[in-house]
């Protein structure tokens, strides 16, 4: 039985949750532990914390945050952002994170994926891929991706928050990191991120069909009705959303109800 996971994502800066978290009943809306507990109660299956701390000097606060979350939250959580070495990963995992997610550091040095997988196991090695359509053609069915030079799938890996192209094909990259030992792919559409127009289901499908590890669909969710297509059309194993949960528009339970109504199996909220 495949059971689709619903994963709220929180951005953290120096150990504090940032970017538009707006719950009414929180004593401290920036407290990752309190927010994590709220999502845990709502029935979240996992949590992802994306560390956007600019200075590496401040990373100790992220380690402390992982410890604090692990003290009180009894569902799995992943920390991504700023992990460049096995030692960075070790500190977060020792602090209580269940998985770490690597992105641009893996693009710069793919061996990092193999090193983390060898040291801690593939199950805690997530590779985040920020993908963008490098080329499109207009058809009667709308814009569809088309191959570009060096990008046979039409989906290209970007880094630096979607601003910098790498010339790497996203499907080939996904296959490569799985060979290196990635246990899960967190796939974000940088075309859709922040648009609230829904997942890029074509890109999700292209990646999900090319690897045999779980794929988390991310980027573009503007309402719970956007979640099911990531699974039914995109073939994702988990769906990630941020703003719909943070602003209190929807709860994780709402998300699970929408998925259930689309015929998708979830852990009851």
């Amino acid at each position, binding site marked *: *039985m*495949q*059971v*689709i*996971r619903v994963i709220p994502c929180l951005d953290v800066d120096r150990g504090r949750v940032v970017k538009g978290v707006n719950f009414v009943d929180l004593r401290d809306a920036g407290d990752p532990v309190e927010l994590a507990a709220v999502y*845990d*109660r709502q029935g979240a*299956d996992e949590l992802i914390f994306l560390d956007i701390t600019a200075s590496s000097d401040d990373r100790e606060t992220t380690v402390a945050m992982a*410890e604090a979350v*692990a*003290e009180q939250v*009894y*569902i*799995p959580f992943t920390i991504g952002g700023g992990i460049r070495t096995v030692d960075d990963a070790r500190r977060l*995992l*020792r*602090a*209580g*994170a*269940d998985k770490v997610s690597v992105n641009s550091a893996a693009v710069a040095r793919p061996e990092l994926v193999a090193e983390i997988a060898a040291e*801690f*196991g*593939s*199950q*805690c090695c997530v590779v985040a891929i920020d993908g963008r359509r490098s080329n499109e053609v207009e058809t009667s069915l709308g814009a569809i991706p088309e191959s570009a030079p060096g990008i046979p799938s039409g989906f290209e890996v970007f880094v630096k928050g979607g601003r910098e192209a790498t010339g790497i094909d996203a499907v080939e990259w996904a296959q490569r990191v799985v060979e290196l030992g990635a*246990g*899960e792919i967190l796939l974000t559409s940088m075309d859709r991120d922040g648009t609230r127009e829904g997942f890029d289901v074509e890109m999700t499908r292209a990646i999900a069909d090319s690897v*045999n*590890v*779980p794929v988390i669909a991310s980027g573009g969710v503007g309402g719970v009705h956007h979640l099911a297509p990531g699974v039914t059309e995109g073939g994702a*194993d*988990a769906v990630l959303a941020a703003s719909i949960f943070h602003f209190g528009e929807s709860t994780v339970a709402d998300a699970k109800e929408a998925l259930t109504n689309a015929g998708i199996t979830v*852990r*009851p909220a």
Partner: protein
Amino acid sequence: MADSNPNETLDSSRPTIAVLDYGIGNLRSAQKSLIRAGADASLTADPEEIAAADGVVLPGVGAFGACMDALAATGLDEQARVAAASGRPFIGICVGMQLLYEGSEESPDHAGLGLLPGQVRLLPDTVKRPQMQWNKLATSDHPLLIGLDGSWMYFVHSYAAELSDHTIATTDYGGEVAAAAALDNVWATQFHPEKSADDGRRLLENWVDFVRSTSKTSQTPESDQTRL
């Protein structure tokens, strides 16, 4: 979700639990969740502390062979065998369950602890590997699983023990997969109870209750323990 654990008020009956610490992965969650379930849990590689504990936990993450190597390097393979043979409650979690068997397809050149008969096999190729999701248990009648038929647990694994007479819970992932096993005092779960929210907490409470029921200290409380 209650913040207080009723067991925490019964300090005199907090059994001691040794979580075998052989340098792998994140054991903090396991320790915390056992404390929450009413135990006095510590991470340890000290033979005396392990020998004195009312119950012993064998955790495990990563590859089977790497875990067996790490167990051997710390001498905890022998400590685990001794603890299991002592008849005290013993539980393996995740790869810790797999290590209890005779061997695994993941690492054919490594023998397991052989505390449970059978082999560990790769999950079928008709499903994604690892299984990295919550899944539902079908349970048999066993003290570990009281109140947990149809419960949801968090799984992360690519290999699983063969189904056998010792299987006490299964889950459906490309077919029936062993989710928990028990032979006398040696019990095991393939899933992570410490990451399985309230259902996982219930399972650990069941185990801690069992440890308490078998421990000498619970029958003869020591003088320095205070009943609240």
